[in-house]
């Protein structure tokens, strides 16, 4: 039971202090129009879960520059110098996570799994404070599931049942994030009638999606 709403309505669903998953990879496949509306709203103290903090001029990057983020759980901040500056100045907490581990932690949150057992990060700063398990003679890190209050996604196409379709490399973290948040809002380039996306080709089933917003591409 998906509903089509406006950008401002979508932005208003994000409260101060919320934990927000945001799709995209350096902004590609990111809900950049909703993020613009969040900047206008000036919602504060967000914890974001995302691949990266983009560049200072776009999407998440602008939220960083505008000091709306309290904590960022990301794999990479190299494309946005302002994130590094705020981190070093103690203004922004950054938890760096290996990219595959981030995908699995979100997936575990959405799939009802108790955690992720991976070798990525062993004998590096990533393992600090974490449980290690020996399984069949090999060490694995136990990484915790991630969930969010809200997921802001970007899809190329949605049908009116909320089924999503992603073009090219815009898919990235969007499908796993759709499974792991209380409320899921998808910004889309195009809204089509039910039936225009073949049920075989649906990438995120509409049951995961609460709201659709026509974006600004």
């Amino acid at each position, binding site marked *: 039971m998906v509903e089509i709403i406006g950008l401002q309505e979508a932005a208003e669903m994000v409260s101060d202090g919320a934990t927000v998953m945001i799709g995209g*990879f*350096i*902004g*590609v*496949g990111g809900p950049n129009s909703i993020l613009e509306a969040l900047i206008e709203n000036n919602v504060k103290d967000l914890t974001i879960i995302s*691949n*990266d903090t983009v560049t200072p001029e776009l999407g998440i990057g602008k939220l960083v520059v505008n000091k709306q983020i309290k904590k960022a759980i*990301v*794999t*990479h*901040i*190299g*494309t946005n110098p302002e994130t*590094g500056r705020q*981190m*070093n100045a103690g203004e922004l907490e*950054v938890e*760096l996570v*290996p*990219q*595959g*581990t*981030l*995908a*699995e932690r979100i*997936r575990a949150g959405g799939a009802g799994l108790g955690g992720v057992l*991976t*070798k*990525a*990060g*062993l*004998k*590096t*700063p*990533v393992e600090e404070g974490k449980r290690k398990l020996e399984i069949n003679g090999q060490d694995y890190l136990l990484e915790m599931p991630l969930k969010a209050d809200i997921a802001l996604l970007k899809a*190329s196409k949605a049908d009116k049942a909320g089924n999503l379709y*992603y*073009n*090219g*490399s*815009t*898919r*990235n*973290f*969007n*499908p*796993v994030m759709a499974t792991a948040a209380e409320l899921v809002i998808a910004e889309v380039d195009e809204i089509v009638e039910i039936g225009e996306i073949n049920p075989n080709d649906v*990438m995120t089933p509409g049951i995961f999606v609460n709201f659709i917003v026509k974006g600004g591409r």
Partner: protein
Amino acid sequence: MDKAQIIETIAKRVAKELNKGDVVNLGIGLPTFVANYVDAEMQITFQSENGFVGLGPAAAKGEENPDIVNAGGLPVTILPGGAFFDSSLSFTIIRGGHVDKTVLGALQVDAQGNLANWMIPGKMVPGMGGAMDLVVGAKKVIVAMEHSAKGKPKILKKCTLPLTAASEVDMIITEMAVIEVTPEGLVLTELGPEATVEDVLAVTEADLIISEALK
């Protein structure tokens, strides 16, 4: 050698390590150039960790598709036979051992095959991106980098920077040398076009075993 020659030398030599049909992930920066020296009949499939296989050349000016970018966010192309997927499947490919070779840069690499390439505490913390998964998951890990940083060795007895992964590097390729990581230590197996064994030793902190062929 100037910068361009260094890059060409390294990239060409890395390309020789690829076997027909390999699935290969190239890191951002220098490793990207390896693709220029791989010909089509090798049937190499390049994997892009942001979500596809069949990574092709950079998009031509005016023909960029904003929905198709590489892991550096730059507009690229997908070759016929390629496929897009999400981050979860992308790292199933990477972590699950389905990438034959990963080629990455390094800040430091050491005699145990330890790699440091994601942070200099207090100075530069870009984050690890997909590097930790790639290094742990790929069947063969090739470090491709300039041999030294302004004369300061990068191939060390022991890494001093925080690691990306422990004991995962298999081979180091620089403009001066090809070095294999073995249980006995680092073995210098080849020299770059302008380098001598003495040149290499002078800018390498780790002990090197000189292979028979070079003696």
